[in-house]
């Protein structure tokens, strides 16, 4: 199956800004800023692919290279088989970008006028463009504001407009940057379901999603890449990344009919290193374990043998945020080591 996006050995170094001092030899030449280093991955057709990383990690540069707005220093990006440098016009025809930047519209024009302008740039015939604009405004709950100036919209609605614009020419490939950042929880949930529905369309839309909302990434993306200091650190399904990176989980048992002392006494012989606390009438036991080991069985057996009721049992695995933090810590340690 051909890939929707294929990235091979991509590197990007921004040259140091032109400095008169350096030219005259009075200041040291500043080195180029390496934004991406040897990045390679593929995105399948119809896949929602997540890209996460801290600020300055290289997410925006990568997105802009795919969108043909910035040229790579080395390496290649192909989108639907088109090269992002030599066939940039074709790439832009098959790709839509919804950036989080709300200044990217004309604030004194209405929503309709804004979208019609961009539709004309795609050479969409007038009648078809009008129909498409109305359809998108309806899909994104912006119908009532169609004749309102863009500048009068709420931040959340401005963000929806960016998504509407990215879909104008019905592209098979979308780059979404923080699509729910300014939406309220209900609107964000609706937006997520809208995004998920795009990937299920026939033909499906392939989506590269960058977000700081890691729950959103976990909910929507089949695979996730963690990027840090311009390099891809992890690339896998969200589940596998969490497990591989931190194969431990925290277990929380809520018990009824047993005191703190009773729980400590019952558990101590079979399960060392537990924390026991009181939560109202209930006693709460928490402990860590390697995913899949027998500590949970031993703990449950201990309290059940004691005649205690287990009200609930919850496990809490490492979140993507924890994985991201761990990647950052590793980077920091490496950085210190290099000093």
């Amino acid at each position, binding site marked *: 199956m051909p890939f929707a996006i294929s990235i091979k050995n991509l590197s990007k170094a921004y040259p140091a800004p032109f400095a008169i001092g350096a030219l005259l030899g009075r200041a040291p030449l500043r080195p180029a800023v390496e934004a991406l280093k040897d990045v390679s991955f593929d995105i399948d057709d119809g896949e929602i692919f997540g890209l996460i990383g801290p600020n300055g990690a290289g997410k925006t540069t990568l997105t802009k290279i795919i969108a043909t707005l910035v040229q790579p220093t080395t390496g290649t990006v192909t989108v639907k088989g088109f090269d992002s440098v030599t066939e940039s016009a074709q790439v*832009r025809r098959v790709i839509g970008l919804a950036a989080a930047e709300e*200044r990217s519209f004309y604030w004194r024009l209405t929503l309709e006028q804004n979208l019609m302008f961009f539709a004309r*740039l795609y050479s969409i015939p007038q009648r078809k463009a009008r129909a498409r604009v109305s359809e998108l405004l309806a899909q994104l709950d912006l119908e009532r504001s169609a004749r309102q100036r863009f500048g009068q919209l709420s931040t959340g609605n401005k963000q929806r407009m960016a998504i509407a614009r990215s879909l104008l020419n019905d592209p098979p490939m979308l780059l979404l940057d923080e699509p729910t950042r300014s939406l309220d929880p209900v609107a964000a949930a609706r937006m997520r379901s809208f995004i998920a529905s795009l990937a299920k369309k026939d033909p499906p839309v392939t989506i590269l999603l960058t977000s700081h909302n890691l729950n959103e990434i976990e909910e929507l993306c089949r695979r996730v890449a963690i990027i840090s200091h311009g390099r891809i650190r992890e690339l896998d399904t969200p589940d596998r990344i969490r497990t591989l990176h931190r194969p431990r989980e925290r277990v929380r048992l809520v018990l009824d009919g047993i005191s703190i002392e009773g729980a400590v006494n019952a558990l101590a012989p079979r399960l060392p290193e537990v924390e026991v606390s009181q939560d109202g009438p209930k006693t709460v036991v928490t402990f860590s374990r390697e995913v899949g080991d027998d500590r949970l069985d031993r703990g449950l057996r201990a309290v059940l043998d004691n005649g205690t009721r287990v009200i609930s049992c919850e496990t809490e695995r490492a979140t993507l945020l924890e994985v991201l933090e761990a990647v950052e810590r590793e980077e920091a340690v490496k950085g210190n080591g290099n000093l």
Partner: protein
Amino acid sequence: MNRILSLFDRMRAFVIRDFQLAVSYRLAFLLRLLTILIVVTIAYYISRIFVGKGNLFSDWRDPLAAWITGLAVLNYFMTNFSSLANAIRTEQMQGTLESVLMTPISVPGLIVASSTLDFIEATLYSSLYLVFGSIFFGVTYDGSYLLAFMILILTTMVFASLGILSASFAMVFKRGDPIAVLLGTSTAVFSGVFFPPQLLPEFMQNISKILPATYGLEAIRGVLIEDNGLSEARGPILTLLMFLAVLLPISLWVFSRAVRRAKREGSLIQY
């Protein structure tokens, strides 16, 4: 052929957008009309000082006709020059450049298309200088409007080449374009818009000789005021053609280098 059609599509998109934006500032249009009328009126009253006085220069026999022709043509040249240079800058400042460049429009296409309404407006406003002069102050033009218009287009193409050079500066250095500063000031002072360049000291007359506007103005005034034909206008037209032959390829080459550099540095969308 397809490329030309799609360029027309884009030009139409930008004209509609710019018109909608202009309409959202209704007062600006009225103020512009009023300004032109005031400038023409002032020129008329200053010209009254010279009534009955002999004039060494035939095309300055009627100073009002010479001034309003000069102002009209200067307005046309400078608007068209600066609109090309500003095309990228305006979108950069507004923050819309990235979203426009995400559509299948090329950077040269964007510059041409987004300047279209400026060209139309410049034509309208420049004509108004002549129309107001004719309606309110009885200025008459005897020569061929078609020939004058062709010379205007030729000079505009020379200015457009300089505008492309200026746009290249804007793309790489963002601000501080020396071409705009030098060309704007020297054209206003040395090209004969307000007085004949022959009045200048000799070394300054040399400056006027390297400005394309001097030849454009000389030829257009000659045609409109003195009823010159093609044979009389041949000298300045040939000079303008030479300017164009040199400047156009250079400006296109510099522009393509600037686009490549801006894309490589990732600075195209920054301001």
